[in-house]
């Protein structure tokens, strides 16, 4: 469903990604792991149209996705939950979620989706009238994922959902990722928390200095010595 070939990208004079190839198929969780500064976030930003690639191609659902505005990609079902979450802080939880309906605001059954999100993250229902910026880190992460789900994504891209969360909360969030996959949404998960991400993922890529150095099933990589090396340089 998502196919990336020879992708290179960077910011003004700084090339960060070097000829990246990766794919995500329907119904799978793909993890992209790597150390800090390896280019994970840049990869996601490029995929969601925020950074223009300098070379290479991205196709989503068979259609060209390079040069398409981010808002249009969202309408097509390619949705990112960015690092830092990009929530609307001064808006309430419910307003944040309802904004996820923007591209489908004329559809009749759209607000039923709200119930599904609340079912996935009951805490959000409890806090629906609260401002997003007053939520705890974990709740904010749930809200960010919930808001993205409201757009009815075909592929959900999560950038470091575990950042700043306690291990217990990380598992709550990653459990939800599984549920989301089971509801038929493909997931591209970017994590520095490698062990957890690899255990969860169907397939995974290891990114180092802007290039993919390893790929395989999540289980394979989870026990791979080379992954440890990529992280700790041992």
């Amino acid at each position, binding site marked *: 469903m998502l196919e990336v070939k020879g992708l290179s990208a960077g910011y003004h004079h700084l090339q960060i990604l070097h000829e990246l190839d990766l794919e995500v198929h329907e119904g799978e969780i793909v993890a992209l792991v790597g150390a800090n500064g390896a280019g994970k976030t840049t990869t996601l930003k490029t995929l969601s149209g925020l950074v223009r690639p300098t070379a290479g191609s991205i196709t989503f659902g068979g259609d060209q996705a390079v040069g398409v505005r981010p808002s249009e990609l969202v309408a097509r079902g390619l949705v990112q939950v960015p690092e830092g979450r990009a929530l609307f*802080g001064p808006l309430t939880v419910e307003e944040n979620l309802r904004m996820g309906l923007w591209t489908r605001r004329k559809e009749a059954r759209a607000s039923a989706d709200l119930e599904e999100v609340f079912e996935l993250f009951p805490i959000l229902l409890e806090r629906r009238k609260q401002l997003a910026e007053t939520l705890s880190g974990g709740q904010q992460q749930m809200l960010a994922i919930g808001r993205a789900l409201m757009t009815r994504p075909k592929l959900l891209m999560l950038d470091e959902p575990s950042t700043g969360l306690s291990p217990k909360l990380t598992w709550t969030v990653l459990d939800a990722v599984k549920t989301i996959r089971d509801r038929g949404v493909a997931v591209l998960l970017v994590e520095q928390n490698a062990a957890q991400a690899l255990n969860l993922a169907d397939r995974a890529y290891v990114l180092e200095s802007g290039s993919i150095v390893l790929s395989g099933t999540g289980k394979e990589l989870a026990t791979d010595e080379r992954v440890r090396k990529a992280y700790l340089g041992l």
Partner: protein
Amino acid sequence: MTSQPMVADQETRTPTPSAWWARLPWLRIGIVLAAVVAAIVLAYLRSGSTVVVTQAVVTGILIGGVYGLVAMGLTLIFGVLDIVNFAHGSFLAIALFLSYYLVAGMGMHPYLALLIVLPAMFLLGALVQRFVLAGAMGKPLENQLLITLGISLVIENSLLLFFGANPRSVSLPGDQGVAILGAVAELSRILAFVGALVLAGLLFLLLRRTSLGTAIRAVAANDAGAQMVGIDTRWIYMLTFAIGTACAGAAGVLVAPLVTIEPVTGALFNIIAFVVVVLGGMGNVVGALLGGLVVGLAEQLGALLLPGQSPLLVVFIVFVLVLLLRPQGLFGRSGS
């Protein structure tokens, strides 16, 4: 760069219901109120006349409402587009001349002119944003300042070129003094105040209660986030600028019977609107309305406190103090 999570990971917080009024900084509003009361007392001590002070307070509040409306448009534009719009007052001047021609030239009732001026200014704002400002979005602040400065020069001097510098006026049929709270105010002044409050209320409802308004606030809060839920931010920018311009236009119609209509009238409102916006906190729409009242009062009471000086001097003193001590505004949220 690693981003800081917005808050600590505590799961023990109790949910607090938070209607918008519960989030207003009541303590600071209290301090501002106390300052206003102190100014009133001082003004009374200096002038020695209750009537004079009451008159000043009533006049100040009435005109303050209009200032608030002008500033709401400006602050909305700043909050969403991140542009300090130096042309805001010029748009108000266009509205003044438009209503002059609708009233004096075509015999329209001064307030009916709203029906034409409001959509016309909305459209003008949209066009200016789309065809002039859009090219400078995301450019350094100086460029945007200078572009809006250029627009204001063009507008103000085109008005001068086409209409000349002769002052004009619009009169409201049946305008007369009305006694309120022991003071006298012209009917047109009262109606301008009421009109400004109604329009401010409508704008507030638009922002709070409609999904379009929520989208505007969402773009103001986090435009990257807005793109990620599929909002086309370019469209929101255009719309917001149009709404802001329409606010200036509406204010122009409302004050037309109160002011002498000249090309430079807009500049005066522009400068006052800046003061109000900073007072209220840049981007804070409710703050702008409160700030308008504060400036209206400061202007009127200032005339009593510093007799012989321009009433605007006090406004500027307040402005500079606020900029230096609390640049995020009197009613802005604390921190950041």
